[in-house]
């Protein structure tokens, strides 16, 4: 079994308006030392499914079912105390906005040391020493001085580094980074991603990076999971997905990425429409109202039947959820010429 094995994860929220189906039948695998990039729009279920791994939905109005095996243990079956002990030690999470993720009244050092002291029986002094060590490791200058600073005295990039230090202080096997660079500017973003990759090499951790930025995915991920309306719509090795995508939503995502050095003839094509309501998702394929290629599928299949995850043309681990019979042709002839004509010329 893989280090992390998610099988048929379902997360529903019972609300006054009905049941919000945030995640439906999600499955993926992840080994130590590898990175999984989860991509999708806001509301696609990326964060919800990852929070479920940490058990952060316990005690809320969420209904979670399925199996999440971390190092052989099903996290959904163990009791609250057991999962609490794993949080911060075997698995950790880095959140999007480091300023609001830290308590404003306590020093950065205090909060990082807290993560260490919760899981290790050490003295305050030892925890402080370890905290300074970690701050140094994540690249914070003068860590022995900055350990006593408050979060508002750090810059955005440094705060995120501190959060990474907090997450990795107990050498967790699984690190979930929920949009870690969204709140940062681009240069800092690159530094943070580099840092994560360094730390992954050092600690051999499995990293799940949740993002809506395909650039981040291209940089870091070994495997990519594309989510839409709470479901996996494409999953496979990163290179495969980026070069031979086989699902119209993925095409749409790739079309929406502006390229600074790209061909000026390349078009930026947004995906029309809005993400569907998770209270009452459309029947059939959840993407069908926004899909430009619906008519290529005979009958009314897209509107009536939910496609299953089927292997892509190249096979292997690459799967996609789409009714199109020849997605690779459609992609090569219709989509690619619009968004990256220079790539066609290269291939020709």
């Amino acid at each position, binding site marked *: 079994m893989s280090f992390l094995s998610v099988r048929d994860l379902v997360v529903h929220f019972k609300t006054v308006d009905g049941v919000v189906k945030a995640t439906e039948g999600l499955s993926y695998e992840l080994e130590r030392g590898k990175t999984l990039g989860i991509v999708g729009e806001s509301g696609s279920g990326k964060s919800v499914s990852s929070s479920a791994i*940490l058990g*952060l939905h316990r005690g809320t109005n969420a209904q979670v079912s399925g199996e999440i095996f971390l190092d052989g243990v099903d996290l959904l079956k163990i009791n609250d105390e057991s999962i*609490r*002990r*794993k*949080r*911060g*030690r075997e698995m*950790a*999470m880095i*959140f999007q*906005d480091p300023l*609001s*993720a*830290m*308590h*404003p*009244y306590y020093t950065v050092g205090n*909060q990082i040391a*807290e*993560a260490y002291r*919760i*899981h290790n029986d050490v003295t305050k002094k030892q925890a402080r020493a370890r905290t300074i060590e970690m701050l140094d490791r994540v690249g914070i200058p003068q860590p022995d001085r900055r350990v006593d600073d*408050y979060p*508002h005295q750090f810059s955005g990039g440094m705060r995120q580094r501190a*959060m990474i230090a*907090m997450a990795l202080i107990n050498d967790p096997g699984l690190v979930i980074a929920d949009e870690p660079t969204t709140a940062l500017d681009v240069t800092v973003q690159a530094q943070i991603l580099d840092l994560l990759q360094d730390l992954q090499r050092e600690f051999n951790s499995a990293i799940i990076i949740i993002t809506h930025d395909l650039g981040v995915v291209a940089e870091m991920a070994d495997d990519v999971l594309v989510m839409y309306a709470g479901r996996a719509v494409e999953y496979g090795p990163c290179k495969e997905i980026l070069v031979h995508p086989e699902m119209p939503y993925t095409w749409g995502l790739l079309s929406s990425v502006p390229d600074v050095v790209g061909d000026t003839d390349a078009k930026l094509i947004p995906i029309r429409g809005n993400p569907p309501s998770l209270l009452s998702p459309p029947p059939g394929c959840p993407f069908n109202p926004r899909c430009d290629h619906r008519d290529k599928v005979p009958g009314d299949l897209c509107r009536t039947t939910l496609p299953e995850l089927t292997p892509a043309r190249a096979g292997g681990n690459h799967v996609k959820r789409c009714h199109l019979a020849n997605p690779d042709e459609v992609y090569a002839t219709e989509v690619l010429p619009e968004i990256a004509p220079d790539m066609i010329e290269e291939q020709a």
Partner: protein
Amino acid sequence: MFAYTIRRLFVGVIMLVAMSMVTFVLFFASPVDPAQFACGKNCSIEQRAQVRKGLGYDKPVYEQWKNFAVGVFKGRDYPEDKSLRKAAPQLVSHCGAPCLGYSRVNIANVTDEFKDRIPVSFSLAMVAFVMWIAGGVALGAIAALTKGSIIDRGLVGISLVFYAFPTFFVGLFLLKFLAIKWGLFPVPNYTKIGDGGVWTWFINLLLPGLTLALFYMAGYVRMTRAFVLESMSEDYLRTAQAKGAAPKRILFKHTMRAALTPLVTMAGLDLAGLLGGAVITESVFNYNGLGKLAVDSIQTFDLPTIVGLVLLLGAFVIIANIVVDVLYAFIDPRVRVG
């Protein structure tokens, strides 16, 4: 921080000076003749004129204020008018610095009037404060943590009821039933610690303290509940959870600490206001505190006492504001200056 405090104190003093001036002006702006009150019911015109002269009310307002201000530092002699003093030296009374005035109505220096009454109001305020803080914060936190449950709704509902009851009603009810009719408590009569020991002092403060506390507690239950709920929706709680912190740790170290700040501000200001006396409660239980003094002195147009009270209560509020602001900086590092 130090410079900040000094600056605030300086501004505070200026405010007190302004307040005293306004009080003088307002006092004499009323259509009622203060000398008439000081003189008494059967007062002839000559006596009234004499009283007016003796109290200095015949002088212009600004001069009266000036005498008052000087008197605060140097002390004063009464009667005001120098010629009267020379005429009857045995009737001259001296008011040592700081002299806040001499009350003809109560035949005492204002500072002496305060001396006996301050401990009463202070004790009442303190006892009520401890009760309402302990009760209000604890119950408010419980309501927030059990949000939506019957406990929560019950607490909120009961708070509303007690908040709506006027203090005289609650006070009279407690006095009539708990003390007199059912004899659960002794009829409250303020006893100094020196006279009867701490327990007697406390027991006599229990009912009036409770009267005040119930009202304030109602407000604090609601406010604490709101602050704790707001604190619970903060992102850093999720981080604490993700770190594997135990629920109790998250509650006290993270949630409550954040909810504390606005509470400290509120509590400080409420207490300061109460130190100046609780008018209605003191009247109901017949406690000679500053509140009762305020009502009496206004009804009898006792200018010196009124001015003295305005300054004293003003000083309490000003100092409380400064203290609360400084305290806030200790709790919330983002607010610190420098």
